[in-house]
């Protein structure tokens, strides 16, 4: 047993960083203090989602001691109504959203009238999660592409619910890779991996985590291709990319949509009618939080991976995610419908 030697140095560095950061506190504190900040949290108030918000709310309160922060959880379909309410908040009031943009982007593509507001008009403040994803297969599945594309029954792919990003992406992947899959709902994160390992499911989209690394090392899960991400160093460098698995006529825009959707995690945004000074203050607040050593330490202790991306970069990603012209939108919807058809009839072929 040894006590960590570098602990003192870590504390000293943290104190210096905290002092440096405190200068930036003043501006946004001045702008936001004494006001009420309403936060629409577009995911469930349980499990990982609750821990994620709890981490941010704790540090938001620490950074804004004189601001009242209210949160309302709106999971799944409720997030859609939440966006509408957020967009209709009075000018001058302070309201932001914390959502998984891909889930809502797909709703907007599918039925623009369903969301009372265009996600592209929002002020995107900060993306706090960016993920690397692969398509993994069970250990004894024959990985020959022709065989994968011609199974007697659709390959089983476990997901949590039908509206999750994983579920949407899997359907689209079926359409553009020609590998028919059927989503089976009701599997939480651990059950998904266990089902694949037990050989009861065939394929699974998996985020690149240390847990996945363990499964791959043991040979219980076999990586099939990478979907998106820069941090695939834990895997075989010769692992094929999504582009290698696309059917010859698969539209590149749909593949780009899939990659954009799968790689994007949770993000903060403000309603379009938010005062620019408030937008700047909120952006500064969130940037200060994700750079705060105490926040970083807490996130590490709770095992919550934070990978921040600026509001500008995020806005570009959202624009790419939601095509503005009807033809591009129709292409995504057509691919989705085809993917769903393939889950019933594995012989079905997509035409674009």
């Amino acid at each position, binding site marked *: *047993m*040894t*006590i*960590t030697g570098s*602990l003192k140095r870590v504390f000293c560095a943290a104190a210096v960083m905290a002092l440096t950061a405190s200068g930036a506190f003043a501006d946004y504190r001045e702008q936001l203090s004494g006001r*009420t900040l309403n936060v629409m949290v577009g995911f*469930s*108030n*349980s499990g990982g989602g*609750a821990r994620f918000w*709890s981490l941010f*709310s704790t540090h938001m309160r620490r950074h804004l001691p004189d601001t*009242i*922060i*209210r*949160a*309302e*959880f*709106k*999971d*799944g*379909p*409720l997030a859609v109504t939440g966006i509408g309410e957020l967009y209709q908040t009075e000018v001058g009031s302070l309201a932001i959203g914390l959502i998984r943009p891909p889930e809502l982007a797909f709703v907007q593509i599918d039925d623009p009238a369903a969301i009372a507001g265009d996600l592209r008009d929002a002020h995107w403040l900060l993306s706090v999660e960016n993920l690397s994803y692969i398509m993994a297969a069970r250990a004894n599945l024959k990985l020959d592409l022709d065989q994968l594309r011609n199974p007697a029954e659709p390959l*089983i792919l476990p997901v*949590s*619910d*039908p*509206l999750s990003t994983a579920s949407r992406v899997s359907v689209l992947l079926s359409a553009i890779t020609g590998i028919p899959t*059927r989503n*089976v*709902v*009701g*599997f*939480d994160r*651990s*059950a998904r*991996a*266990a*089902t694949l*390992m*037990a*050989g*009861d*499911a065939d394929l699974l989209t998996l985020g690149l985590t*240390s*847990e*996945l*690394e*363990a*499964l791959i*090392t*043991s040979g*219980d899960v076999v990586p099939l291709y990478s979907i998106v991400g820069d941090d695939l160093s834990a895997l075989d460098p010769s692992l094929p990319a999504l582009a290698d698995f696309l059917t010859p006529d698969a539209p590149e825009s749909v593949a780009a949509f899939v990659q954009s959707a799968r790689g994007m995690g949770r993000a903060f945004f403000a309603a379009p009618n938010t005062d620019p000074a408030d937008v700047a203050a909120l952006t500064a607040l969130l940037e200060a939080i994700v750079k705060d050593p105490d926040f970083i330490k807490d996130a*590490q*202790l*709770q*095992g*919550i991976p934070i990978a921040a991306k600026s509001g500008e970069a995020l806005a570009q990603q959202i624009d790419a995610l939601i095509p503005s012209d009807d033809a591009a939108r129709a292409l995504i919807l057509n691919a989705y419908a085809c993917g769903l058809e393939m889950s019933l009839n594995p012989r079905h072929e997509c035409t674009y």
Partner: protein
Amino acid sequence: MAAALVTGTLLGFIAGLVPGIGGRIGIILCLPIALFWDPLAGAVFLFAMHSVVHTSTSIPAIAFALPSTASDAATVLDGYPLAKAGRGGEALGASLSASAIGGVIGAGAFLLAIPIARMLLRWFGPPEFLILAIFGLCMVTVLSGRNWIAGLLVACLGFAAALVGLDVQTSADRFTFGFHEISDGLNIVAVIGGLFVVPEMLSRFKFTQSGHDQAANTRISDVIVGMKTTLRHLGLVFRSSLYGIGIGLMPGLGSSVAVWLAYAYAGTKNKTGIPMGQGVITGVIAPEAANNSKEGGAMVPTLFFGIPGSSSMAIMLGAFAVLGQPIGPALLTTDIGVSYTLAATVLAANILAIPLFLITVPLIVRLAALQRAHMVPFAIAISLFAATYQAMQFGVLFQFVLSAALGLLLKRLEWSRPAFLLGFIMGPLAEISFIQTSQIWGWSMFLRPATIGLLVVFSALAWKSAKASARTFSVSQRRSDSWAAFALLLGFAAIFRETTTFAPHASHVPALVAAVAMCLAAMIIIARQVAPDSNVQPVHSGFSGFWPAIFFCIGAILVGIPLASSLYALGVLIGMKVRWHIAVVCSGLLGAVQLGLFSLTSYIWAEPLVIGLWTERLF
């Protein structure tokens, strides 16, 4: 390493003693301490902590009827009646030894599983979960005693309550009636708190003086008697531990499933003549053994494959990443020493918990015996805190109050409250397993060896239990039962009508549950018509300590829970003729401890609730 073991055991024991903290929160709070050691010693610290949490959660469950989780609610059912009957020491002793033996069996199973870990994990999937869920629901008949039709009806009510929220298959709302807070489903801790804690607490006001004396006289020798009792039921401990290990091995299955199955199994073996839930010692032994042993099972997928076997193990995985302690298949081969060290930690921590338990119990039992009525506000406040530490919303308070009303009603009717919880826990598991099984396997599920094995074992058990029930079956003859059944008949008719508005896939299971419940309610009403009247029970009354409880609640709203508790304790202590300066110090300490606790977890409770309610800062 030894320091890590001892510190972890001590802190885990303390975390378990405080309802609302328990395993998961305890690990998060103590993670910084683990960082003081090297990765392996840090892991030993966390495992030691986690291993004994469930041992000490049984103390508030038995002494104060305060369950921390759905698992502990099973211990309350028979543990608290035993405590009320002056056998608290025996119940605590039985719980301690069952927990320790269960923990040791779990650790042993983990070691034995090393060569066959992969195979074990591959045996069990949704078809087996479905069989387990159906078996669990059938066990309602065991928990409900002779009035098992009413028990099944209550289980249907629990099942229906569990269906509230988004349907997993279609993501459509079911029974939320526009209330967004319940889209995620009802808050299980609020439901348990209302259903079990409030009725038990209010019943404290009816306590006789002799009850006080009996409880206050609890001695270590009583605890030893309880430990010996467990040794006389080693077969039950072993089988309950097997339930725990089996459920722990299956990721995605709630940990309380193991406890309730073990409790139901104890019901099948109950030959005391006392109905389950009224002070049967095996009703304490079985859930405690299962609760501790399941962690041994959950260690297998967690450590060897990085798949968390329980919610606590999911946090443990994150903690391991922070510590830099690698996990994965290497623990089966090159790093097998780490596996042995962690198994030895579980063994040692469970044994170390015994002296800790023996030191703590007499103090706590005396505390429980003193001025029982005055414990009520604290118990209810702690129970509410446990329900709302993550999400303090009006909806959660409403659920708590509604569950309390239901709990009081069921207690008065003498209908089984565990049946509700069993329906609430097993219902969603049955629904989702059914969906998954039908989509992946269909009829071919009956070709799976594990499915066939479970079917054979559970069919035999169910047949045996049904035979016993048939021998002792009697229809309810009370008028109040008929009225309650009639109200439920109307309620389930409304539920059935509501299901017609759902998408087809989302309506199948709710409609089935409502239809079955209507049949059961009709059976109770018809039985009363066929064999009317005779057995009307007297209604208890005399809630003498009710008003102090109300004053406490108002105080909590106006000045915050810590200050209200402090003032309340001051009044109680002065009323007990304790010297004023000791009373001030004790009540001050109580307030300070609560303040510290709340600020560590959910600071909003430290403020006057009225501020939170006005500003809606309650989350």
